[in-house]
């Protein structure tokens, strides 16, 4: 991977902003366009860009495949867990109304947690798929 130094420097400069943008999309999803899915894709894109510019091996050291592969089920588990929390508070599955002191806050908290779950799974899956495709091509 001998790429132009300009590309490397520009990428390094951009990556933190991309991550920041992903965070914005994630948290601002309540008010503007965006949410867990979009943020997850952007986060994954950051890692993929890093891998394209700096090579697969350093990226895999930075973000190990085992972590990525655990993220895939973990996100679904968060989602399912929020749903089960509905049982505990005496409501139906995925009812967030009693997660906090009043209904509106409960809903907001529930939505935030659920979106976090989506982010984790989407991000993990995208990176994991990219890793396996890239890894397959190395041999």
């Amino acid at each position: 991977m001998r790429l132009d130094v300009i590309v490397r420097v520009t990428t390094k400069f951009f990556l933190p902003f991309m991550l920041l943008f992903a965070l914005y999309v994630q948290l601002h999803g309540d008010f503007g366009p965006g949410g867990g899915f979009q943020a997850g894709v952007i986060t994954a894109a950051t890692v993929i860009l890093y891998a394209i510019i700096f090579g697969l091996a350093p990226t895999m050291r930075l973000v190990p495949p085992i972590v990525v592969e655990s993220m895939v089920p973990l996100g679904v588990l968060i989602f399912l867990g929020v749903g089960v929390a509905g049982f505990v508070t005496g409501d139906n599955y995925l009812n967030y109304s009693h997660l906090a002191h009043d209904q509106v806050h409960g809903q907001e908290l529930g939505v935030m947690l659920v979106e976090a779950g989506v982010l984790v799974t989407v991000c993990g899956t995208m990176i994991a798929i990219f890793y396996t495709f890239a890894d397959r091509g190395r041999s």
Partner: protein
Amino acid sequence: MIEHHLPALLVVVPLVAAVVTALIRHGIAAYVTTLVASWTLPVMALMLLGQVLEAGEVSYALGGWAPPVGIEYRVDGANAPLLVLVATMAALVATYAPRSVASEINIGRRGWFYTMFLLCVAGLLGIAITADAFNAFVFLEISSLATYVLIALGRDRRALLAAYQYLILGTIGATLYVVGVGLIFVMTGSLNMGDVAARLTGIENTRPIFAALAFITVGISLKLALFPLHVWLPNAYAFAPSMATAFLASTATKVAVYLLLRFLFSLFGTDFVFVQHPITPILLALSLAAMFAASFVAVFQDDIKRMLAYSSVAQIGYITLGVALATQTGLTGAMVHVLNHALIKGALFLAVGCIVYRTGVFRIDQLAGIGRTMPVTMAAFVIAGLGLIGVPGTVGFVSKWYLVAAALEEGWWWLALAIVASSLIAVVYVGRIVEIAWFREPSSRVRAGKRLPIEMIAVTWVMAGATIYFGLDAEFTAGLAGRAADTLLAGLAGPG
């Protein structure tokens, strides 16, 4: 308290189990999780069936949002038996699985293989239980994606091709389904099946609704392998791992049948679909074509799994035949055959799984003498095979009894004759196996082999026994099927 949440739990438990198996990855630990989770399913499904028999129907609003704003789970006479069927098959196949899977799937993949199995179970249960048209699509895709992977993990490299072919056709089917749902959604503004049915009255005769009917019917027909759209099925069943074939053959197409029935009867309404439009002759012609052509092709197969797969296509013809008649007896016949054929095909594919485990043989001509070296397994195979033919005393007879009765009710004696005649073809292909298995000298390939694990024989025999038990005592299954037919014919638009 827990009774109230059963509808959600029935789908959430396999999902949680799938996630847990994906996290732990280790083959044996994943298997134990699968086994525990899948045995809770029939318990919950039977409890739900009890509730339905008592109360008529059970509705569960997910997220606490009352339908049509939120998504509703709804269990009634039509889908409760199906839930029991899918849940029971999942539990039985999971019990059967460990050593069969160990012999066919590489150790590094076993943990995730069970994840896929659980996802497939959760997807099928989700389709069967939901009352929301779009939610059904989402769960359809969960089960389909899991199915593609399960098929692709078969040992033969042609399994990959079979999975790819199924992926293309399955996705086309699902997309057509979404188009149909979209048209309905635009016209009614709702996705909840009961709500849609109520809002459709009055605008039935508009063009978009007719187009929606066509798209949904064709889309689901691809999934349930209705005759000319069945091309994916034989390869998929033939090359998938044994345990996956047994589970898919007995559940996946059945759930698709249910979804079609739900739309045709509950949502569009019997009147609209069968009285005003020429669905009956089309469906009847396709069913008959399936019964004869697919049975005929089955006779000439070399591979035992492919033979059974073609026989499945033919048996789906019997089910759609009952649907096409659109009478109470006809629908009862269709529903009872859904349950009975699941038992029969489950038993047959499990028996084949035993043969493959012990000898590694697929080709029919290499099975010579297998009846002498594996008498217990082959006895179960023959019992289930008799069910396929429809010999009195087996479940197959019960189904055909209702279908013939329905045909005679309409005064169509030629149809009744056709049903009996097509059963004779089944005699040929089952008889061929019997002849080769018992009346030839065992070959060396059949003699050699590992000892068969006890759980594999036991589960195969439980299934084979069930085909006899429910054949002699048809009250239970026929009662459920009759109730399902009543529920479907009543439609969702009416009160309740």
